């Protein structure tokens, strides 16, 4: 602690401490704690808040699991299946992004020289200057029945009738996959960029074919980057709202949309909070389990 002040000086040190403290406590911990608190309460009219009726209980979690009283099914099938579908879909999107971004990141980091590489990176970044919602609408237009893809397919005579990409959820997955692609590319790019080229050449010199070079040399080295990319993409995809809202087909529902409905149209903040807490905790547990499985330590992600 004394060292910290020594290094940064009294004024700057205090400033940094206060700002970091503010960030962590006011912007992260307190809101989450109040969400947690909310999730254990009844949805009471304002007049009853704070009265004897306002006690902690698990009714909201019970609802997520078992549905309303008198539910003929033994579980809350609708919400639970959306929940599972969201997680599986987020996992799928993450793997898809990984498969797409790893070769790209490798190419950018190891094969492209100087100026051209920077142009490519810029081309990747520029679309993200556009607002997330506008981007989602752009995808809607591209995948629409008279959008550029259908127009091209019909124009070239491959199909006669436009394909309903929205209903088939193609637009949704494309939009979700695209939304956080940078968060996948850059950590992997950073990791691979610091890999000594000679190691790749040494492996090649030892007779290794390209796939073994990746399997034994590049991927182990890039593992922290891959993990941090996958973690971020998974968390953000599972928690995405704009893309499912705008690009989702009429039959598809994302778990965040249910949360949104409880908060907004449903007017039931405690239940929305409970759903949100479950989503957050499940994602965290899932990510930790994956890290355990692939033997990755928390500290490596920060690299």
């Amino acid at each position, binding site marked *: 602690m004394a060292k910290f002040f020594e290094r940064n000086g009294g004024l700057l040190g205090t400033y940094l401490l206060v700002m970091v403290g503010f960030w962590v406590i006011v912007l992260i911990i307190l809101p989450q704690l109040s969400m947690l608190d909310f999730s254990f309460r009844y949805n009471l009219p304002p007049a009853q808040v704070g009265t004897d009726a306002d006690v902690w209980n698990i009714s909201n979690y019970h609802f997520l699991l078992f549905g309303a009283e008198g539910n003929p099914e033994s579980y809350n099938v609708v919400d639970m299946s959306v929940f599972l579908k969201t997680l599986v879909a987020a996992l799928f999107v993450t793997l898809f992004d990984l498969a797409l971004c790893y070769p790209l990141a490798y190419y950018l980091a190891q094969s492209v020289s100087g100026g051209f590489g920077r142009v490519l990176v810029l081309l990747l970044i520029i679309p993200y200057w556009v607002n997330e919602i506008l981007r989602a609408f752009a995808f809607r237009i591209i995948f629409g029945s008279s959008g550029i893809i259908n127009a091209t397919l019909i124009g070239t005579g491959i199909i006669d009738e436009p394909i309903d990409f929205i209903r088939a959820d193609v637009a949704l997955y494309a939009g979700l996959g695209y939304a956080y692609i940078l968060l996948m590319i850059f950590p992997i790019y950073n990791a691979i960029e610091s890999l000594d080229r*000679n190691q790749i050449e*040494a*492996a*090649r*010199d*030892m*007779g290794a074919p390209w796939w073994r070079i990746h399997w034994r040399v590049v991927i182990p*080295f890039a593992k922290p980057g891959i993990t941090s990319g996958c973690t971020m993409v998974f968390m953000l995809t599972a928690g995405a709202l704009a893309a499912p809202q705008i690009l989702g087909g009429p039959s598809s529902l994302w778990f965040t949309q249910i949360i949104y409905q409880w908060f907004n149209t449903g007017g039931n903040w405690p239940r929305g909070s409970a759903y949100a807490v479950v989503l957050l905790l499940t994602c965290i547990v899932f990510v930790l389990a994956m890290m355990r499985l692939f033997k990755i330590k928390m500290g490596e992600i920060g690299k």
Partner: protein
Amino acid sequence: MSAGVGVELDNVWIRFGNFIAVREANVNIAGGEFFSFLGPSGCGKTTILRAVSGFLEPSDGNVRIGGRDMAGIGPNQRPTALIFQNLALFPLMKVWENIAFSMEVRGVASAERRKRAEELLELIALPGQGDKMVSELSGGQRQRVAIARALCAQPDVLLLDEPLSALDLKLRQHMRTELRSIQKQVGITFIYITHDQGEALTMSDNVAVMRAGVIDQIADGQTIYDDPSTSFVASFVGENNMFRGTVKKLTKDAAVVATDAGELDARIASSVKGELKSGDDAMVFIRPEAFGVAEAGARGKGRIKAMVENEEFEGQSYHVFLNGPGDTHIKMSLVNTGRTSGSAVGDNLTIAYDTKQAVVLPAGELASE
């Protein structure tokens, strides 16, 4: 096993755009030989090695290994193993996995790989250290692991790119002897790159001295030292006093060159015999240890009168720095026999050299210190 696999560079040119990194390299390395490329930084040594190992194709000419043309054959197909300037060990593999990586590539079972790795660890004097991570080893140990990893691939030709440059002097000397003995043991061709002349001269059967993309001389260490073929080689390898002047008299083997330090008798370097003409701009090279204090009446000796400027004692020898005629700076090294030179700073001395140990070469480029 036969006598080993030789390597030939046949009129090899390597260009990067307009820049010529290697021009007209003709090298013939016999199987089982310890061959060194010696040259200052940036002269194209690594580039040549990369052409032999297959990481780049020559712009012109051929690389042949064991008589087979290597054009179009990638580094993973060539019978070479390269030890990189920075070793390039795999940091996320254990030591034994590093060593046995080439066997893993060939699909050898784990137990057998492990066994072979242990044998090689024995060879490099690191027995039982296979389960360590590379980061847990010292610099010299990593060095040896890199050598073991390359040997494990059972190459016909081992290519070493300044593998000892990162080590401190003591360890470097130790590793030199060790490398040499490993080479004798395994009997394969070693191509060794260095900008350290001591290393090249002590270890190699033959040395190629390079200057800015050109190979000036290929010969054994003693020939390079005693009979350099260009002024660059003479000034780059070992220490040398250089006197510049014009050729006055010529015989078949010797010449008299008029220099600032007077007329000097010297032997004509073998590479330019018959080419040197009277009146040519020439350089006479005389090694510091070729000089001695003149004894009256000795024959076959060239003489220079000079004033002692400074003396340095260095244990086994001491160096006398002299100022000769025409303000030439001369260094003389005398073996420490327990007696002093009997001279003091400011004294005038006549120093003498054996004219057979002085070499005349056409004036040309010198190595910059």
